[in-house]
Every structure is written in C-alpha cells, then in structure tokens.
C-alpha cells in the first residue's frame, strides 16, 4: 500500500524531472540555432531553399483551405446575420475572424502538418543515419549548415502564408456573399474597412503569425534533433511534432489574444 503510493509519487517526480530536462534541452537547442544563424544569412541561398520548401510548396494547401474557410464563414455569417437584418456586416465578420484568429491559427496548423512534420523527419533521419555526425567529422557545423537555415526559412514563410490565407479567405467570403448571394458590394467593403483597424487587428494578427511560425519551427526542429535514432523513433517524433505544435499554437493563441484584445 505505502509502497504503491511511494511508487506513484516517484513516477510524478520522474515525469517532472524529465519534462524540465527536455525543456532545458530545447532551450539550449534553440540558443544554439540562433547563435549559429550567421551562415543562414551569409549564404542566403541555404535559407532560400528552405523558404522554397516550407513556403512555396505549402502555397497550394494554404490558398485552397483559405478560400474554403472564407466561403464557409461567408455562408454561415450571412445566414446568421440575415436574421438580424444586418447581412452587410458579413464583411466585417469574415475579415475580423480571419485577420485576428483564423488566418494565423489555421495557417499555423496547416504549416505544422505540412512543413513542420517534414522538417522533423528530415532532421531525425539525418541524425539516425549519422549524416549530422558525418558533417561534424568534416568540420561542417550541422547547426549552421542545416538546422539554422530551416528555422529561418520557416520563420520567414509563416507570416507570409498567414497573410495569403487571410486574403484568400476574405476573397472567398466576398465571392460567396457578394457575387453569389448578392450582398451589396459597397457595404461589404466599407463596413469591413470601418471596423478593421490597422494596428489593433492586422498588426496583432501578423505578430501572432510570427510567434506561431517561430514556435512551430522550433518544435519541429527540436523533435527531429531529439528523436531516438531508429525508424520508430523518427515516426514517433513526427507525430509528436504535429500534436505538440497544434497544442502550442492553440495555447499561445489564447495567451496572445488575452493580451491583445482585452482591456481598453
């Protein structure tokens, strides 16, 4: 009885120590990535490759999902607002929802599953096939040569993807409500412009997407670097990347929203 209790408490202690240890390792890892990022900018071609991989190749999924999210928002918003006789406010609804929340959050979730998982797999396999060690043998720093450019590529791509997502969503909302249903086009745009603020809404949305981009990329790279060097270990690490990034994005979103959009 007492033994079982002690074991339970020991388990809690063990888990806590492990979590703190991992957090410390992740912080040191990120410190290394940032400290060795000089090469990512001096040989900018390396970062360009990563922008191509993380950003350009994610364009299709971002554009298509942005369009559909906008279409759904427009349709649902119109059906609800129609009851209160203010169907023109649908532009405001679509724009605010996308710029403040859905743009950064959904783009970050898509980015995590499309680009983050691939980053984890790449780093994890490079590690398990000892490519990273081989680089070190050849006096090539794998942080400067591989990991840092990946981080900056993701960091630069994510805000751009979120902005494209928002614009496509607003275009989708415009398409369904103005072109198909027939809401007045002038009212749609003017009500939107009257209520979306450059600093309070758009700048805060961009800040969110920058934070999410940094968080998702950092999680993906650390999970890849920390993966056990086996096939199973890499596959688990990829799963963990997607789950942890999604949780981190949603939790960070709550914290950022609480700071940005509450109070006077």
């Amino acid at each position, binding site marked *: 009885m007492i033994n079982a209790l002690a074991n339970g408490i020991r388990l809690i202690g063990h888990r806590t120590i492990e979590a703190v240890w991992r957090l410390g390792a992740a912080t040191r890892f990120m410190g290394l990535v940032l400290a060795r990022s000089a090469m990512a900018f001096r040989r900018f071609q390396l970062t*360009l*490759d990563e*922008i*191509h991989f993380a*950003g*350009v190749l994610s*364009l299709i999924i971002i554009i298509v999902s942005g369009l559909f999210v906008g279409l759904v928002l427009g349709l649902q918003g119109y059906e609800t607002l129609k009851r209160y006789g203010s169907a023109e406010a649908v532009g405001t609804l679509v*724009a605010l929802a996308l*710029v403040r929340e859905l743009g950064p959050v959904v783009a970050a979730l898509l980015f995590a599953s499309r680009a983050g998982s691939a980053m984890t797999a790449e780093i994890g396999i490079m590690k398990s096939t000892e490519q990273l060690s081989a680089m070190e043998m050849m006096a090539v720093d794998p942080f400067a040569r591989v990991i840092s450019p990946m981080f900056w590529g993701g960091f*630069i*791509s994510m*805000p*751009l*993807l979120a*902005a*494209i997502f*928002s*614009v496509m969503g*607003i275009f989708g909302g415009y398409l369904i409500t103005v072109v198909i249903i027939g809401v007045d086009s002038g009212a749609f*745009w003017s009500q*939107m*412009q*009257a209520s*979306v*603020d*450059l600093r*309070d*809404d*758009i700048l805060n*949305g*961009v800040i969110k997407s920058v934070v999410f981009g940094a968080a998702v990329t950092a999680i993906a790279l650390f999970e890849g670097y920390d993966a056990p060097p086996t096939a199973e270990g890499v596959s688990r690490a990829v799963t963990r990347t997607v789950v942890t990034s999604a949780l981190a994005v949603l939790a960070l979103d709550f914290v950022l929203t609480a700071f940005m959009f509450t109070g*006077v």
Partner: protein
Amino acid sequence: MKRTTLDLWVGIFVTAGVLALFVLALKVGNASNISVSDGYRVVAEFDNIGGLKVRAPVKSAGVVVGRVEGIALDTRSFRANVTMRIDKHYPFPKDSSASILTAGLLGEQYIGMDGGGDEQNLQDGDRIKLTQSAIVLEKVIGQFLYGKAAENVSGGTDKK
C-alpha cells in the same frame, strides 16, 4: 529543380505574401483613413459616458473629425473627463457642444460635435462646456415607469 526556377518561385512566394499584407492593410483595414496624429486636444466633462471607449470616433455631421484619446474619472465632481484629439483641419467654435450618441440600435458609441456660433475657435487644452451624456437605457425605462405610475395615481384620483 534548377536554381533559377527555385529562386523564381521563392520570389513569387515572397512577393505574394508581401502583397497580401498590403491588401490587408489598405483594402481591408483603415490605413487610408485619417489618423489624427497632429491635432488639438480638447476635454469634455460628461455626467455619464455609457459605453464610450478609447479610440471611439468623434464625428460632426457624420464626418469623422477625431478620436477619443483618454477617459478618466474626476474624483471631486464624480464626472467623466473625456479627452479628444481633433484634426487640425477642423476648427470648432468655442461654444461647440459634445454629446455621446449611438450608431444604430446596437452600434458603438461615439461623440457627436455640434458647432456653435462663437467667434473664437477651440484651442489645444480647452474644455467643452456644453455636453450631453449618454442615454442609459435603465434610467430611461425607470423614468418612463415612474411617469406611468404617476399618471395612474393622478388618473385614479380624478375618477373618485
């Protein structure tokens, strides 16, 4: 993929992203609206500001002429001090009045300025003397109910 094609695609992506940000700022947001960075400040004292918020618009004849910059409670008179910044292109006479109005039935509250007839214009730091407070729905209903009750009482005595 060849180097040049890759560079081209990255270029297209970055341009599209930056363009999207500009579209958000100019077409969706109100960056093209006036920002009252340089203007003059006036203070108006209200009995009750209702749901007025900082950054609410100040309008005159429906035209946005400024923004609310600060709201504070004067603890001696227990009235609200509302600081507004008004665009310097719109001078108002010294005896202009300010009232708190609501846009539509459920809309946000804003300050409406009505120009007076004074020769002199409001200067930076002036106070607006004539103000009309926000309408608080509970008070209006309360007054209406008291009025009804009084009517009933007087009506009852008339019948006797």
